């Protein structure tokens, strides 16, 4: 047991001190800071960007003044100024004083019509705002002409009441579902990257020890099983350290902008009211998923003879993770589909897909329990077989063809 702790702390501390680890952690934290402050950042870059549009009023100038105030009501960053004719407006466009100009003309059938002309019409924001203001102006004028009362106007503008209600008792409401989707989406990404990154780290670590032959010394003083699990748990602690840092920075930064979180960009991700049970399940499934794939990665890493072969060797494992992630992504739109239910019980997919179901639906507890039990059983089985492969694999040098070398490794570790 003592040696277990020595290997564990060595794995943890030596990885923690590497430059690549420190640099990648700092970069990720910076990225999180940027992401969580994105609405602020967009504001700072956009604030000095006052856009101007010229209006040529060909309705005896009766519309310009009310239109100007209507535009100001729609978008305060957009301002209009008056122009005599198209020639003057075109000159202003080429002098880059304005982005475009709007021609308002009388129209017999509908009252008046607008034509927007600009160098670039790809920026639909401006034309949309102009149209919106024009529509508002028109309804204002029309209601005035029709001599409607305030009440009548209000009635005209009120949309009909519309609600969606789930018939199942505990089913999440549409609003809940949308919020859950955002959170699950983000956490799925975290699980995906976490599993892939740290499992690869294990494979690299084992392969490095093997190719540098330090393994022969290690294995003569520490049993391979102890070594393998000490390493896996050491890297797990490392990943937890990193995750705590990331989430800490993220949480702190989000809290700073808490008012901004419930609106606009962030409301989509459902950060407004984070569901604690979803987070707990995310941690459970991320850890179990990591254990499963890390054990697999340790075995695969132990059979390669050259560090360059590691990527090739673990590619089947990477494919499994990617497939699980793809299924989960498809499942986000329709989490109750039968293929999602089935795949959520396949241990290699469980960490992501069962988590998706738990996050999005109300899954009976026994289903979760079964999937976790199957997952743990698979991890234990893989651990037992893996330890054998590991024991044989680390002494095996030569060409590394996945399946064949795994069989050889098993053969080598056999007791006679």
């Amino acid at each position, binding site marked *: 047991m003592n040696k277990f702790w020595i290997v564990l702390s060595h794995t943890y501390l030596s990885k923690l001190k590497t430059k690549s680890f420190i640099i990648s952690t700092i970069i990720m934290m910076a990225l999180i800071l940027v992401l969580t402050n994105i609405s602020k950042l967009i504001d700072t870059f956009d604030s000095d960007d006052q856009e101007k549009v010229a209006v040529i009023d060909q309705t005896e100038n009766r519309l310009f003044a009310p239109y100007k105030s209507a535009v100001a009501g729609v978008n305060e960053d957009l301002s209009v100024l008056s122009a005599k004719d198209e020639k003057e407006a075109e000159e202003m466009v080429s002098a880059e004083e304005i982005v475009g100009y709007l021609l308002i003309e009388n129209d017999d059938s509908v009252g008046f019509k607008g034509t927007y002309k600009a160098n670039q019409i790809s920026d639909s924001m401006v034309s949309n705002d102009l149209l919106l203001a024009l529509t508002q102006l028109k309804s204002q004028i029309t209601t005035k002409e029709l001599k409607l009362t305030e009440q009548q106007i209000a009635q005209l503008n009120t949309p009909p009441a519309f609600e969606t209600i789930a018939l199942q008792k505990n089913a999440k409401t549409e609003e809940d579902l949308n919020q859950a989707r955002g959170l699950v989406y983000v956490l799925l990404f975290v699980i995906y990257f976490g599993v892939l990154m740290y499992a690869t780290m294990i494979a690299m670590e084992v392969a490095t020890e093997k190719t*540098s032959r*330090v393994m022969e010394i290690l294995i003569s003083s520490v049993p391979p099983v102890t070594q393998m699990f000490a390493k896996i748990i050491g890297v797990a602690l490392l990943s937890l350290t990193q995750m705590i840092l990331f989430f800490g920075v993220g949480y702190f930064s989000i809290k700073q902008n808490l008012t901004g979180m419930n609106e606009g960009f962030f409301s989509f991700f459902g950060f407004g009211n984070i569901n604690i049970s979803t987070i707990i399940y995310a941690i459970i499934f991320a850890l179990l998923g990591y254990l499963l794939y890390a054990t697999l990665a340790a075995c695969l890493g132990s059979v390669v003879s050259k560090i360059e072969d590691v990527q090739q060797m673990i590619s089947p494992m990477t494919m499994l993770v990617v497939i699980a992630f793809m299924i989960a992504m498809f499942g986000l739109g329709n989490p109750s589909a039968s293929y999602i239910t089935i795949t959520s019980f396949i241990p290699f997919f469980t960490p992501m897909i069962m988590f998706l179901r738990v996050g999005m639906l109300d899954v009976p507890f026994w289903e979760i329990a079964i999937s976790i039990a199957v997952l743990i059983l698979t991890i234990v089985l893989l651990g037992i077989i893996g330890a054998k492969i590991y024991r044989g694999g680390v002494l095996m040098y030569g060409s590394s063809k996945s399946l064949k070398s795994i069989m050889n490794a098993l053969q080598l570790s056999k007791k006679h």
Partner: protein
Amino acid sequence: MALQIKEVTKKFGDFTAVNQLDLTIPEKEMFGFLGGNGAGKTTTFRMVLGLLDPTEGEISWEGKKIDYTNSSLIGYLPEERGLYPKLKVRDQIVYLARLRGMNKRDALKELEYWLDRFMVPEYIDKRVEELSKGNQQKIQLIASMIHKPELLILDEPFSGLDPVNVEILKKAVIDLRDGGTTIVFSSHRMEHVEEMCEHLCIMHKGSPVVAGKLKEIKRSFGKKNVSIKADFDLSFLDTYPGVTKVKNTMEGKILQVTGEDVAETMIRDLVPKGFVRKFELEEPSLTDIFIEKVGAVYE
């Protein structure tokens, strides 16, 4: 009791790596393990260390099987560099020493002692990949013996080193033996074994060809070498009865003869022919024995 290898055989599928190896390696001595590549030396070492299980037979140290309960009594230097390339010398030696049951403080103290002794104290904060092969080998040797093992297994400890470094490391290993460590080492270099070992074993294709005390091996080999320098033509000696091998040198010949009696009659025949500058009867070298037994020239 010592290290006992009892009728050990190791098979990998159809291939027999070690065949019926039966050896007793005495305590507090240096034991030489000779043999070409693929002779089964490394496989034997791995079985001694408990990394591989013998197909047949048993290996025991002081009457007990070597496993993880007594692995801190054993030191091992693998054939190729076995260190973390990216780790600093201090971190790695302390780590490996702790795995062999030492505490951190003692490990550091020992490390400093050995680095001083090898005249490289400045390497303590260097990464292994920054060191030359010879210096890596010094670090490697420190790693294998820092915990003062009872049994030290050195797989090709002196390969790829310059003569000065070989001497430094040899001295350290000899001191360790004098301190009571049993040392088993393999080598391609006959002269190292000849110089340092009392007992030895020559392996060929998994089987021991010769095993025992160096002196007895030489005596029982029977054949001797005669080195001759003379002012007259020596070509008649090529077909002289009892001569088994002839090697021409610049000024004379080195002959392998079947025994001392051949040398005795030979010198009587030589003296009347003229002035003999040199006539020396030598013990056969280990190289001679190796070549004879293994049947191939080996450098």
